[in-house]
């Protein structure tokens, strides 16, 4: 009983992580659905989201000094909200550029698409390193949602509760969008059979562009939300794309709730290893990937996926 209580904060942490992993994975999955290739740059865009948010909250330079002073004098909450809203939009723009680059590789050996997104991931990471330096950054968070609180006998992190609630909200909104709106139906149809959708008169290139933008925006949102938990380093991109992939493989490509449940599982694993061996918590993801691909590459639901080229 004592052990369980001791583990509880870590389980809660794992839950928060898991929900955010699910968010990244869902964006990832949307993109796989309408495109032919896996976006290895998804993680770098996740990182870019966090960095852009930092830049939006505490502008370092470039803008006129008066404007910056007035901006920084604003209370933190509007700045945080601005960052949360604008960062995904900016990253979505970058995502659209990437999609335009990917167009040249459609129809060819999927290896080219893979190489291109890998190159993009490296380029984005290099860009981040150049603009913001290789050091670690901090995202300032409004005091209302930071710090800890006491529940029972244990201290919980307020921010992780907020992050979990926010992620649940985003997942809910995403579900509503996909299930209840005509645009969502379009995206699902495109994922199911893009040729047919095009034959029915939908502008497929535009659909792909918008889905890519949407998926990368989700990654950026997750990046901004995850920033206070994971820290902001240029390398955080790789650490974000691997769990997304694990989640999709575990949950099955194309399954919305599969991704959510798998995300929670992965998050728990990472959170719990964090409890016992903090250094190993990130590596546990890589080990999990190796394990999952080796033993259950068809996911818990067992259907041959589009990833098996």
């Amino acid at each position, binding site marked *: 009983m004592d052990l369980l209580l001791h583990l509880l904060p870590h389980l809660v942490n794992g839950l928060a992580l898991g929900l955010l992993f699910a968010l990244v994975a869902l964006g990832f999955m949307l993109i796989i659905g309408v495109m032919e290739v896996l976006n290895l740059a998804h993680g770098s865009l996740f990182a870019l989201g966090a960095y852009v948010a930092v830049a939006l909250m505490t502008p370092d330079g470039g803008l006129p000094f008066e404007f910056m002073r007035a901006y920084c004098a604003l209370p933190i909450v509007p700045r945080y909200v601005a960052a949360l809203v604008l960062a995904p939009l900016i990253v979505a723009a970058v995502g659209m550029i990437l999609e335009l680059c990917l167009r040249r590789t459609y129809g060819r050996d999927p290896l080219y698409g893979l190489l291109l997104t890998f190159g993009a991931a490296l380029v984005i990471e290099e860009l981040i390193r150049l603009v913001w330096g290789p050091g670690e950054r901090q995202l300032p968070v409004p005091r209302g949602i930071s710090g800890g609180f006491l529940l029972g006998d244990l201290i919980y992190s307020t921010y992780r509760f907020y992050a979990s609630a926010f992620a649940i909200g985003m997942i809910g909104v995403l579900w509503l969008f996909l299930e209840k709106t005509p645009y969502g139906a379009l995206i699902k149809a495109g994922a199911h059979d893009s040729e047919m959708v095009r034959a029915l008169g939908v502008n497929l290139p535009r659909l792909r562009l918008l889905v890519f933008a949407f998926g990368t925006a989700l990654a950026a949102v997750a990046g901004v939300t995850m920033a206070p938990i994971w820290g902001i380093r240029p390398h955080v991109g790789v650490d974000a794309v*691997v769990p997304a992939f694990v989640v999709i493989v575990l949950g099955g490509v194309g399954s919305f709730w599969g991704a959510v449940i798998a995300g929670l599982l992965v998050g728990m694993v990472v959170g719990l290893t964090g409890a016992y061996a903090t250094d190993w918590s990130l590596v546990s993801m890589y080990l999990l990937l190796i394990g999952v691909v080796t033993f259950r590459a068809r996911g818990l639901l067992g259907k041959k996926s589009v990833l098996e080229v």
Partner: protein
Amino acid sequence: MRALGGWVTPQMLVAFAVFGSLPFWIREVGLHPYLGIEILVWCVCALGFNLLLGYTGLPSFGHGAYFGIGAYAFGLVQLNLFPNLWVCLLAATTAGAAFGGLVGVFIAHRRGIYFALMTIAFGQLFFFIASKWTSVTRGEDGLLDIKRLPADFGLARFSLTRNDALYWFCLASFVVVTLLLWRVIHSPFGKVLRAVKQNEERTAFLGYNVKLYKWTSFTLSCAITAYAGGLLAMLQGGAFVQTMSLQWSGIVVLMAIVGGGFVSFWGPVVGVVVYFVARDLLGAFTETWQLWFGLLFMASVMFKPEGIAGLFQDLVRWLRAQRGAFLRARAVGAG
């Protein structure tokens, strides 16, 4: 029966001549002999890597790990066991083959995205182990005090401490690896690898044990890269964790593709030379040159996946066509 592809090609002789004469003119062009050694070491690494990507079609995004494993193995054997050049290099190669073989068991039956992500996962795993197992690898500081052991051939003994001497040794390694890889690629084994790259299923239908071929290709590739790692350890005087990072693994991929590894044996060599010359020439002016190299890679994949070697091959083809047209026109005119 004459060996397919021959033992030595004109391109090989050109490459050997260029690299063989390098110490004599490198300073004239404003570069340093150290650069020559770096280029040769990375050429061996990239050639080993391209066996996997260019010839078998398997994208390994974690190859830096084996480069580092080779360096660490070299250093550890030298410092703890037996400071003999040949033993240490053998240890490096064997370590690479061992780890490559182990990882290969997990990934040999995969391809495409699964393969790529698994190589990333294993690469990161080894990177993590190397940085955390400080009792063995000294962690972030790196394994220092690796000395350049003398090359003892029994009859003669050459000290490799000076950069010039090490250059000749690395050149000799480069020649041996080039000849070896050329033979491997033009052997029946190499032909099957190329078949696997073109269409894995069909190759399997033809009765080949595709898994075994892929595993062998991967293990051999890792072994060669690890040998280069041993050379790197001597060059740098240490083994460092950063070599095993995803960034460096990515740079190997970039070098191989930009140079034209998809279509040419010499692609990786061209890519390595371009990278390092760019680093020394452009790096003096701007810090962003690595970004440009990455963008060059993306442009290459988008517009010319055949790379620089591909451009060269196009040029040769165009010249031949021109010559053919000219000769035909002359024949028609005379007749």
